[in-house]
C-alpha cells in the first residue's frame, strides 16, 4: 500500500500544470493533515518490529515527494516567466518615437567651420553693426565719396551718412579705434548690396580677418591663409595669390584655389581656368592705420575677407544662391 503511494503521487504530479495546483498537491501530501503526515502519525499503531522499517520508508517517500515538488516548482516558475515574456513581445520593427534633431543652416554650418579654424589659430571673434556709418564703411577704409572704387559695391542707403554695411571691413576700423596692437581677430556677419540674380542676393555673409603687430609681412598673410584654406578644403589644395585692388590694403591680393571639381584641368565651374576665386586680402593700407591713429612705422598688418555663400556653394555644389534664403526644409534637411 505504501509502495503504491509513490506511484499515485507521481501520477498526480504529472497532471499538475501550475503553481497553485502544485501547492495544493504539496498540502495534500505534506500538509498538517496530509497523507504523509497522517502516516507518520500512524507509526505508533504499528508493531514495534515493523516500525523502524516502515518509518524509514515513510521518511524516504516524504523526502522524495519534497524533492519532486521542488523540481516541479522551479520548472513551473521558469515556464510561467517564459509565458509572461512571451505575452509581452512587441513588434520591434515598428519605428521608434523620436524627435529628429533640427539642422543648422548650411551657411552657418560653413561659417562655424571657418570661424573654428581661425579660433584654433588664436584669432578672437568680433562683431560690428549691420547698419553702419558711411565713415566706417567707406571713408575710414580709404574709399572717399566720388571715388570710382565705390562702384565696386552697390550700396543700400538709409540716408546720406548711414548705409547697410557692404562688407565686414568696417569692423576692422571699429576694433582698431578701441584697441592697441597686437590684434588678431575675425569678424563674421551679414552684409548687404543692392543686387539680385542667380549669383547675388541683397544680403549675404562675410568673414573679415585682421592681424596687426610689429613685423607682420606679406609672407605671413600667405602663411595664415594657406593654412586656413588647406584646413577648409584639404591638405593638398593648391593656392595662388595674384595682385588685385582694394582701397584699404596695399599691396592687395586675390586668392584662388585649385578647382575642387576638376582638379585644375578646367571645367564649367572654374570657367576652364582651373582656379576658383575664394577670397580677397592684402597688407593694411597705411592710410587706414593713420585714420585710427596707429603708428605706421611701428606696425604692419594684413587683412582678408571672404564670402561664406561662395564657400558653401562650392562645398555643397549648390548652383543657385537664392536657395539659401528660400528656407525650404527639403533643401535645409540635406545638410
Amino acid at each position: 500500500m505504501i509502495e503504491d503511494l509513490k506511484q499515485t503521487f507521481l501520477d498526480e504530479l504529472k497532471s499538475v500544470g501550475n503553481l497553485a495546483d502544485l501547492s495544493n498537491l504539496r498540502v495534500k501530501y505534506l500538509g498538517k493533515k496530509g497523507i504523509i503526515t497522517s502516516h507518520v502519525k500512524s507509526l505508533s499503531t504499528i508493531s514495534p518490529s515493523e516500525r523502524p522499517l516502515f518509518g524509514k520508508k515513510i521518511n524516504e517517500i516524504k523526502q522524495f515527494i519534497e524533492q519532486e515538488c521542488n523540481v516541479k516548482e522551479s520548472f513551473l516558475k521558469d515556464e510561467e516567466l517564459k509565458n509572461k515574456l512571451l505575452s509581452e513581445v512587441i513588434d520591434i520593427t515598428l519605428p521608434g518615437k523620436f524627435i529628429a534633431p533640427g539642422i543648422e543652416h548650411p551657411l552657418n554650418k560653413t561659417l562655424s567651420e571657418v570661424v573654428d579654424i581661425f579660433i584654433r589659430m588664436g584669432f578672437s571673434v568680433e562683431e560690428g553693426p549691420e547698419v553702419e556709418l558711411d565713415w566706417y564703411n567707406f571713408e575710414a577704409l580709404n574709399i572717399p565719396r566720388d571715388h570710382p572704387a565705390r562702384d565696386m559695391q552697390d550700396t543700400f542707403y538709409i540716408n546720406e551718412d548711414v548705409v547697410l554695411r557692404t562688407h565686414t571691413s568696417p569692423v576692422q576700423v571699429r576694433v582698431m579705434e578701441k584697441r592697441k596692437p597686437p590684434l588678431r581677430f575675425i569678424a563674421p556677419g551679414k552684409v548687404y548690396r543692392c543686387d539680385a540674380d542667380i549669383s547675388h542676393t541683397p544680403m549675404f555673409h562675410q568673414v573679415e580677418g585682421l592681424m596687426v603687430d610689429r613685423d607682420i609681412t606679406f609672407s605671413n598673410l600667405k602663411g595664415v591663409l594657406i593654412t586656413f584654406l588647406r584646413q577648409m578644403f584639404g591638405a593638398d589644395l593648391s593656392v595662388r595669390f595674384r595682385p588685385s585692388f582694394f582701397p584699404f590694403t596695399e599691396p592687395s591680393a586675390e586668392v584662388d584655389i585649385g578647382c575642387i571639381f576638376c582638379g585644375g584641368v578646367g571645367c564649367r565651374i572654374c570657367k576652364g581656368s582651373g582656379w576658383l576665386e575664394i577670397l580677397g586680402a592684402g597688407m593694411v593700407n597705411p592710410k587706414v592705420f593713420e585714420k585710427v591713429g596707429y603708428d605706421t612705422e611701428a606696425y604692419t598688418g594684413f587683412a582678408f575677407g571672404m564670402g561664406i555663400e561662395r564657400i558653401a556653394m562650392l562645398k555643397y555644389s549648390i548652383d543657385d544662391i537664392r536657395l539659401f534664403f528660400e528656407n525650404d526644409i527639403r533643401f535645409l534637411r540635406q545638410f
Partner: protein
Amino acid sequence: MRVPYEWLKEFVDIEYPPEAVIDRLTMIGLEVEAVEHADDDVVFEVNVTPNRPDCLSLIGIARELSAAYGMPLKFPDHNVVAGKRELDFNVDIIEPKLCHRYAGRIVRNVSVKPSPEWLRKRLEKCGIRSINNIVDVTNYVLLEFGHPLHAFDLGTLRGKIIRVGTPKGVNGSSKAAVKTLDGAEREVSGDTLLIWDSERPVAIAGVMGGHDTEVKETTNDVFIESAYFDPVSIRRTSKALGLKTESSYRFERGTDIKGLKKALDRAALLMKEVADGTIYGKIDIYPKRYFPAEVNVRYERINRILGLKLTKREIHNYLKGLCLEITEEGRSGFKLKPPAFRRDITMEADVIEEIARHYGYDRIPSELPRAVMGVDVQKADIRGQKVKNTVKESLLNAGFTEVINYSFMGVQDIELLGIGAEDERRNLIRIRNPLREEESFMRTTLIPSLIRNLLHNLAHGNRDLRLFEMAKVFISTASNPLPDEREHFAVLYYKEKVKSLYKENVSDFYIVKGVVEAILNDLRIYNYSFARSKEPFLHPGQSADIFLGGSKAGYIGALSPEMIDSLQIKAQKPSVIVVEMDINRLISYIVQDIKYKPLPKYPYVERDTAIVVDSSLEASRITGYLKSYSSDLIEDIAIFDVYQGGNIAEGKKSITFNVRYRSSDRTLTDEEVDVLHKSLVDYILDKTNGQSRQ
C-alpha cells in the same frame, strides 16, 4: 576692357602663345576673366581694377607686358610733321579747377564715310559699334591710348571759340539744356562742366557730345578735342545723368594729362589716313600743371613688408620696366616720380605693390607669423557668443531647423501683425533704395519672415515645421544716427494634425513652452515667469509674455485665428505657435557661479493632495502660494494633474500637487508631516477659495 591679341602685339613683340599671355596678365594683376576666339584672333576680357585707368588701353596693357617680359614698348605713329597754323580759333577755360588742360586740332576737308574694314573690325572686337571714319578714329585712339577724344563738326561751332565751364561759371544760370548725340534732351545742373561755343553748350564735357555739332556725312572740317577733366566732376555728372560712357568711365578714373597730346596727334594722323583730311594747327591750353608728388621709398621697408631679401639692383630693374623713374638715389632708399598716367602711386606702399606684382606674388614665401599668445576678448563678448550657441544647440536638439531670412520687411508686415502706433517695433529704419517695396525696412521682429517660410513650405507640401532663426532686429532711436541692433531668436512650430503611430495628447503650446523652458534652464536662468500676453497677433487665450526678472523679454503663443484666416492656411484648426525673445536680455539673468550643496542625509516624506478650484484659476497662482508658504521643511512642490469634467462641477477643475518634505537634521515623522501638510493645504484652500477633493 576687351583686348584683341593681334592688336596688342603691335605694341610689344610677344613671342608667347595667348594662353601663356593670359596667365601672365592674370598673375600681374590684370585678370583675364574670359577669352573669346574670333576669326583668327583671340580677344581677352581683362578685368581692370579702378586704380589702373592706364590699363583701360592697349598701350597700358602692353606696357605691363613689356615690363613683365623685359621687352620694349612700341608706340604707334603720332608725330604730326607739318601742322598748318590756324590762328583764328580760340579755347577759353573758364573753370580751370574742373578742366586742367584742353588741347585741340583742326583737320579740314575730311570725307566722312564708313571706315575701312581693318578699323571697323578692330572696334567691333572691342565691342564698339562703327559710326563713321571720323568718330571711329576717336574711338580707335581711345582704345589705343586710353584717352577719350571728341570730334566736333567745326562748321557747326559758332563764333570760332570753344569755352569750357559750368552754366554757373559761363552765364550764372543754375541749369542748362543739352541735346546729346544719342538724341536725348538733357537738363543738367549749374555745376555741370560743359563745352560751349560762343552761344550755347555743345557737349557735356567728358561724358557725351552734343547732337547739333556731331560729325556726319555733310561735315567738311573737324575740331578734335583732347582734354583733362577733373575726375570727381565727371563722376558726379555721369551719376546725376545716369549716363556712363567709355569716355566718362576713363575720365572719372583719371586720364594721362601729359599724354593727351600724343592721342590728339595720333587721331589727326589717322583722320588724314582714312578720311583724307588736312591737318591744321594745334591749340593747347594748360592752366593747371600737374606736378606729381615724389615718393620716398626705403629698401629695408620693401623687404620688411614683403618678407623678401631683394637687392637694390633687382628693385631698380622692376621699377625701370614700369617707367617709374628714380629721381634721387640714397644709401637706404630713393625718391621716385610717378609718371602722369600712374596717379595711383602716391606712397611707399604703392611702390612696394608694384615690385611685388612684378616679382610675382607666387614667389613670395609663405610663413606663419610669430605672435604673442594671449586671449584678448572682453568677457561680455564671449558670454554673448556662448549664449547664442547654447540657444542654438537647445533648439537644434529640440528638433528645430535653422532658417536665414533677409533682414528686410515691408510696412504691410507690421500692419498684418496689428502692431500699435506706440509700439517700438514701429520705429522703423527705412532703406532709401530698396530692391522691392516689401523689402524697404529693416526688420523690427523676426515673425513675418518665419510666417513667409511657413507659407512657402506649406505650398510645397512640407507639413511638419519646426523652424527657428537667430538674427538682429533694428529699432530706430532718436538719439543715435545708428539704430539699436538687438539679437533675437524666433521660433515657429506648425504640425498638421495627422494620424500618427503613437498618441500624444500634449497641446502644441506646451510643447513649445517646454522648449523655451529647456533653453532657459540650459542657460542656467531660473528667474523667469509667464503672464498672459497682449500681443495683437496672438490668440489671447493661448499666449504668454516671457518675463525675466520683472521685465518682458519675449513672448510665446498661438497665432490668432484672424491671422490664420488672413494667411489662408488650408488645414483643419491649424495651430501655429511662435516665440520671439531678445537674446542679449538673457545674459544678465544667467546664474554664473555653480556652488555645490551637500546631499541630504535624511529621508523625505511625500504627500499628494487634490483640490478643486475655479477653472479660471491659473496653476502658477497655486505654485506661487505653495512656494510662498514659509517652512524650511518643504523641499519641492509640483503640480502633476489637472482635471476637468467627470464628477467635477461645471466651472471648476481639480488640481493635484505633490509636496516633498525633508529636514536637514533629522528624520521627519509621519505625524509631524501630517500636521504640517494639513496646515499647508488649509492655507492653499483659503487663498484659492477651493475645496479639498475627496
